[in-house]
């Protein structure tokens, strides 16, 4: 279920990338050949970029796509790595919780003041809400991984190692 939701979100992010590329290409061509750039492309591209980045976070986590430095941990024994992973997942969840809370507050403030973009006067709160929703989805994926990681850490000695983001990797 979490995997499907993450995949769907990242698929939307992919579509947004295509839209962004199409809009920017049209704008550049119209600007250079017809001296007639499109109004608001920069703003729309900005909104779509938020979707690309934040709605792709959960899928990237599940695929192990986020940057990790394992220079030291790769030399540690499996059980130690397993417990370290529990700690880092807990820290990550805490951090995501804070960021989600702050960005929800910002989106609510934008809604309360009916804030709009400068050029096209689009409401800002929907784009701002993409940030906490994308991060919340990543937090759910992390929570599921944390559950599997705790079970692995407490399980048979041979299986005490880091688990991946997805169930089939565990």
């Amino acid at each position, binding site marked *: 279920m979490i995997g499907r939701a993450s995949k769907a979100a990242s698929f939307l992010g992919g579509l947004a990338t295509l839209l962004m590329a199409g809009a920017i290409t049209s704008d550049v061509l119209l*600007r250079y050949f*017809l*001296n*007639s*750039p*499109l*109004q608001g492309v*920069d*703003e729309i591209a900005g909104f779509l970029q938020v979707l690309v980045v934040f709605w792709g976070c959960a899928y990237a986590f599940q695929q192990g796509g986020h940057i990790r430095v394992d220079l030291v941990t790769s030399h540690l024994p499996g059980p130690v790595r397993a417990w370290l992973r529990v700690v880092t997942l807990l820290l990550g969840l805490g951090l995501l919780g804070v960021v989600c809370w702050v960005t929800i507050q*910002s989106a609510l*403030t*934008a809604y309360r*003041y*009916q*804030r*709009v*973009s*400068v*050029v096209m*006067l689009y409401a800002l709160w929907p784009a701002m809400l993409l940030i906490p929703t994308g991060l919340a989805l990543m937090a759910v994926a992390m929570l599921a991984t944390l559950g599997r990681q705790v079970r692995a850490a407490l399980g048979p000695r041979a299986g005490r190692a880091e688990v991946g983001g997805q169930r089939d990797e565990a």
Partner: protein
Amino acid sequence: MKKLACLSVAVAVLTLIAGGPAPAEAQAKPIVWNLPHVAAPTYYHTINLNAFAAKVKEKSGGRMEIRVHPASSLYPQQEILPSLLDGRSEIGPVLSGYLTDVLLELGVLELPFMTSSLEEHRKAQQQLKPFFTEQLGKKGLKMLTAHAWPSQQVFSHEPIRTIADWKGKKIRVYGADTSNITKTLGGVPVNIPFGELYTALDKKTVDGAITSATNAEPMKFFEVSKVINYWFLAGASSEWLVVNQKAWDGLAKDLQQVVLDSLKEVRFEDKEWEDAKAFEERALKRFPEIGMTVVNPSKAEIEKARKLSRAAWDTWLSRSGADGKRGMELALKALGR
């Protein structure tokens, strides 16, 4: 007895770990207010704000401290107003140029060609002070002073001498008014934060930028834009120094007085206007020395732009409601029109 001795030792150890008994000065921790701004550290707004902050510290005997954060180092331009409304910043500027939604009605003097010089802008602003105080008050902000950025002009890579030259040009804007006038004149507005403008001009993301001509040197725009076009879109751009009302109400009465007295003692408002004029005159003198070409469009072209700009006024009126309409009437009256 032995137990008591052990307890005393434990308390002493804990006290030492905690950093020892609190000294008297630590108990009287100063009240700190954060003041975010977009201006460069060497720009006159920052210099005057620093002087004001120093005076507050001096007059309060160190009980109160105002920390000035220049060059968007605390909040980017679009976040300064929300931070004041929410109380995340206790004190700070409301820049009329950046108004896009909240307090849009304050930007009446920012409308294109509403004022044509610093003097005219100041005169109108003084008469509109009660209106500004009232509108800011409605949003929980207390106005302390009203001043301005110097006249808003257009930096560009190629000269913009005529209305036809605006067509298809991507122009950096920073608020609803500059966006509307750019659209009206045939350009394509792009909202770029002040702090990112240098790079945008350098990379030619935009063909030009509306901002104060006086930013050429402090922000090093002369390095990445060789033409300054004097269209006089606005004689000045209003700025109000405000305090979040809750923060103000939470301040001891004597410290409130310190803040007000400090503004008077450093002649904050007058100094801002004097510096605006001096910076404007100095910028004009310096342009040839720093390799910039000054373009003065003909009176006929400016008149054409003035006529076209009425569409931008209509857009503003339709968005700013009854308060905007009242502000417009007051402004026109103050300007004798």
